[in-house]
């Protein structure tokens, strides 16, 4: 089984064991697991769209796809109330300090999704110019990358669920890169 399947299998349900007793029950679990479980199911994204990927992000927020179903309840217009920033669009050199500042203003724990070719690598069209940052990960660390130009709404949903699995696994960004459990 590969790592992602293992994580998925491990995180299907509430973390821990439930022992039913007459008139109630006892839960045996690890506090960290419960915290991660709670966090992963309440990730509020920051409204941050710099180009056409933003339209797809709005589509995912609307009733047809509806990321609220997975706990991405409401998009927040301020970084201080947001948990995850979806970088939906091109980051230019003049935007980079703004992105960094928004990221710094978000409260920990915070997560980053790079949506689309521009956020991953500078884009399929405008990468060879004086003005474009070649990938948002030059500015802030990225948790999940979504390829596409722009990605399908399903791809964004998939990435959001992948982020939840990442949080539930309890590993840090660095540990996942090295694939070492905590």
């Amino acid at each position, binding site marked *: 089984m590969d790592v992602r399947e293992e994580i998925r299998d491990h995180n299907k349900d509430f973390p821990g064991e439930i022992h039913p007793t007459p008139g109630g029950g006892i839960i045996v679990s690890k506090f960290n697991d419960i915290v991660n479980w709670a966090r992963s199911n309440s990730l509020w994204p920051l409204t941050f769209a710099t180009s056409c990927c933003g339209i797809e992000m709005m589509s995912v927020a609307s009733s047809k796809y509806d990321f609220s179903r997975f706990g991405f309840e409401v998009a927040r217009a301020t970084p201080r109330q947001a948990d995850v920033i979806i970088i939906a669009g091109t980051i230019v*050199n*003049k935007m980079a300090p703004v992105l960094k500042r928004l990221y710094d203003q978000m409260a920990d724990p915070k997560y980053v999704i790079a949506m689309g070719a521009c956020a991953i690598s500078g884009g399929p069209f405008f990468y*060879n*110019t*004086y*003005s474009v940052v*070649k990938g948002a990960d030059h500015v802030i660390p990225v948790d999940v990358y979504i390829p596409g130009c722009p990605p399908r709404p399903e791809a964004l949903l998939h990435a959001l669920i992948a982020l939840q699995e990442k949080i539930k696994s309890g590993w840090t960004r660095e540990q996942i890169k090295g694939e070492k459990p905590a």
Partner: protein
Amino acid sequence: MTNEEFKQYITGLLPSAVFDETGEWLNVAIDAQSWKPLAQSLRHSQFDFDYLFCLTCIDWKTHLTMVYHLSSTTYRHTIVIKAQLDRTNPEIETVSDIWRTAEFHEREVYELFGVKFLHHPDLRRLILTDDFEGYPLRKDFQDPVNMIKL
């Protein structure tokens, strides 16, 4: 109003103007010095060119060309004026006092191509940072940090 009328009017003002009708609109090639008086007269002529809807520049490597697209909101006719500039010292008179929109567009051409607009009220950079070096839309612009050579 027809292209023939435009041609007749412009030839009357400026005998050296060269016309080209191969495209959608009438193209008029002029030299940079005659642009300001021509613009002035076109704006106040019976053709009523009250709308400058596109102002841009082209780098031909040997010279620069300023391109002005003029239109009339009353008659809905369009004309294109092209003025050739010297690449080493590109200078042309501003038309921001005739069409207010030119103020911003000339600032943009100024920062991207390095064209100097004489008597412009506020010739600063529009978008680029103050410490940016070079004119990024010129063909010989080099930026080894951000750009690979194709």
